[in-house]
């Protein structure tokens, strides 16, 4: 266990009273996700976390009956946790966050404009990156040019579902509608354009822009740019950005913004 490991173990197990810890560490010549129990050797921890640890947790969580779990969480992980807790995927009391402020390189790689978690335990807070340069270019294009750009990109899609499997807030997993035949007409690869439109719509009130979809795409399709374009739309339409545990999605409230069902009509 390296120094980072010792410091992390102290914070997670002693300070935050967690029973388990999810972090990233060196293992057999690679960087691996690691889920350790209290008292276990945490190993050579790394804080340049290449994984979306919340996604790793979503797959494990149903099988971990009880106990408090500490997660090394960057700002995007924190926002992902909020979106998932809001939807009952996690129960909040069982998750403890260990805040990690992202480095300059990580911010540049993710083109992230919101890199500092609410509580920082590791890393120095840095300024967010400027806007997505490709998004800017796309917005200046005409409709035809934009369509040509995206059709050429989506034609490379090999339907590996990396963008959905690795996305922390994309939790339909075993029953993802994109795997059904009806909405996306295709008998071979690449899938029809509807695949990416439907996914954009599903992500509109959930995506926390961690960029994992773009990083997991073998065809290098600029999916994070597409997410940022949709985020701009949601901001302009409803002044709403996902990631806040309290805020209900505008797609689930009335025009006045209150709850959809009114009690007067319970019969």
């Amino acid at each position: 266990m390296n120094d980072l490991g010792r410091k992390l173990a102290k914070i997670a197990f002693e300070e935050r009273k967690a029973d388990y810890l999810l972090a990233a560490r060196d293992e057999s010549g690679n960087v691996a996700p690691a889920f350790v129990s209290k008292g276990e050797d945490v190993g050579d921890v790394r804080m340049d976390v290449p994984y979306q640890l919340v996604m790793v947790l979503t797959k494990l969580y149903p099988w971990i009956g009880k106990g408090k779990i500490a997660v090394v969480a960057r700002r995007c992980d924190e926002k992902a946790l909020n979106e998932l807790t809001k939807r009952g995927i996690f129960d909040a009391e069982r998750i403890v966050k260990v805040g990690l402020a992202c480095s300059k390189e990580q911010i540049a790689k993710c083109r992230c404009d919101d890199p500092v978690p609410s509580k920082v335990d590791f890393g120095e807070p840095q300024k967010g990156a400027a806007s997505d340069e490709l998004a800017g270019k796309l917005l200046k294009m005409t409709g035809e040019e934009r369509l040509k750009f995206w059709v050429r990109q989506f034609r490379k899609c090999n339907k590996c579902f990396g963008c959905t499997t690795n996305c922390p807030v994309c939790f339909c997993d075993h029953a993802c509608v994109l795997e059904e035949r009806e909405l996306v007409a295709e008998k071979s690869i690449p899938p029809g354009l509807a695949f990416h439109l439907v996914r954009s719509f599903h992500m509109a009130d959930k995506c926390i822009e961690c960029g994992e979809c773009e990083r997991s795409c073998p065809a290098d399709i600029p999916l994070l740019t597409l997410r940022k374009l949709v985020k701009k739309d949601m901001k302009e339409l409803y002044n709403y950005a996902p990631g806040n545990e309290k805020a209900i999605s505008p797609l689930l409230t009335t025009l006045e913004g209150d709850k959809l069902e009114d009690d007067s009509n319970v019969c």
Partner: protein
Amino acid sequence: MSVKHVLTTCPYCGCGCNFYLQVVDGRLVGVIPCKTDVIGQGRLCIKGYNAHAFVQHPDRLTHPLVRDGSQMRKASWDEALDRVVSEIKRISSKYGPDSVAVFSSAKFTNEENYLVQKLARVAIGTNNIDHCARLCHASTVAGLVYSFGSGAMTNSIPEFEDADCLLVTGSNTLETHPMIGARMVRAIDRGAKAIVVDPRETPLSRIAHISLHQRPGTDIAWIDGIARIIITENLYDKEFVETRTAKFEELKSAVEEYTPERVEAISGIPKDKLVEVARLYARSKKAMIAYAMGVTQHSNGTEIVRSLANLAMLCGHIGKESSGVNPLRGQNNVQGSCDAGALPNYYPGYQSVAAPEMKAKFEKAWNKQLPEKPGVTLTEAFELAAKGQIKAIISFGENAMVSDPDITHVEKGIRNLEFFAAADIFNTETTKFAHVILPAACYAEKDGTFTCTDRKVRRVRKAVDAPGEAWPDWKIACELGKRFGAPGFDFSSPAQVMDEFASVAPIYAGISFDRLEKEILTWPCTAKDQPGARILHVGGFKMGRGAFAPVKHADPAEMPSAEYPMILSTGRNLFQYHTGTMTRKSPKLEREAPVPYVEMNDADARRMKVAEGDRVRVSSKRGNITLVARVTRNIMPGVLFIPFHYAEAAANMLTNPALDPIAKIPEYKVCAAKVEKA
């Protein structure tokens, strides 16, 4: 509460991507791509993400089964193994050891392949040891050993990304090798010129710079045509040809007749396109050739492979960064199983059985007298079984009843055996005939190494226990070996097996489990302090001069006729894998392509009044199957394509067992067939 993330290698194709299997208290719950993996880089294809789905499937074989009359009943390992040994001994003594054949599997680890070939040669005393490489890249080994002295892929997977020109033929790369396809896509994005030559429009050809469609079985014509243009327009690398190659004159005269006009007549490729491709390939600085079953599975497969080697040598596109001839191995360890000697004519490390000094070397190493002449191949074995010359077969992980050509004939062979033993992870169409079935562990339940298509040796680590009493195959082979009373089968771990394998095979000499924990090793890796050669033939061919092959076009073994006017080609799709033993038990894969289909050209379909989704009967001289028609513009008129994953409509009921004379590989890619509405 035990939670593990176990780093292992994907069991499906030859790319060798690494990912973590998530295990909670012995239950497999998910797959996480390894972000720092040199090949996957945190990405996988749809099969990779579902590689855990079949492992803990309820239908897994859990106990040895022995035949009792017509019924199969559970048995102990002792009873089952003793039954195999006694039967083999009886048959071997009655008809001679060469009446027994042993099939290893390209799904096995290197260690297991090494032990199974040792079982055949040392324990049973026969060279009749083969595996399904026979059905895929046998013609590559025979072809490239002649041209370059080695049958392996000359470059590494990441190099595809930096090529200026990609000549891809006989490979639907984005479906059969998705992560290599992804590298090609990245190259195309960077401006590389991709040329795809395939009778079908494939996901890769749709984004390629040039997409040509040749009539199946006419590959040598257009490849020789390109060679002719390169020579006549003086585009070839004179310095390289003079210093590094031999038989240039013979090549020159052989290709003379393949003018662009003649090539167009034979293959259908427009002559101006052929010239454009020849110039583009020759003039590029870094040009990669990539090919797979579309080139190898022909009755002249070996010659087609050599004609591709000719192009590379003509332009000096060999032995350099992002330049070479790259056979894309289909299986996760077909490369390793050949390296480990599971071939009738090669000891481990491609050391020829026919060479007396090699026989002597292995007799000393294994201190056992070894059989003289090379053994029979997998494809010949069923032929000989039908004739009664092969009396017993031990098949590890092979599903011949779906993967081998002319299944009705294969069945005749198996039924004619006196003894047939099979080891597998599920019951398959082939284990149905077995007298003894041995339950095996799958990739997630054992340690070992796979060698992926670009010769990297990749670790496989045990994540969960095997179901019931299933054993890893290396343990089965060892136990059998001991019960035969043969020396050298008491290994306690795969690591030890690798050490012995390394000691007898120079190309694996530097490889060991503890080194693999820390670094990436690529064979040939001849010393413990070296990483191994990433690129082959740098600065020179091992055998001195590369040999041009003066090969000529020859019609496929079975040409279309009045009664069977269409050409049928078979192959794979992205979602299923080979005989479907694993993919058809993975829900999210089976759902993507659950139903057998035949792709046919929309003009043909209109002519025959067949609409999308109609049920049609496709028949050849050898049989007929009924399946759904998929009408598409993505296939040439007169050509049909059927994926062979579906046992309920097995494409190999129709395929032609005609073999390539040198490599003995069946002509899966061409046979004559007809279509009728069912």
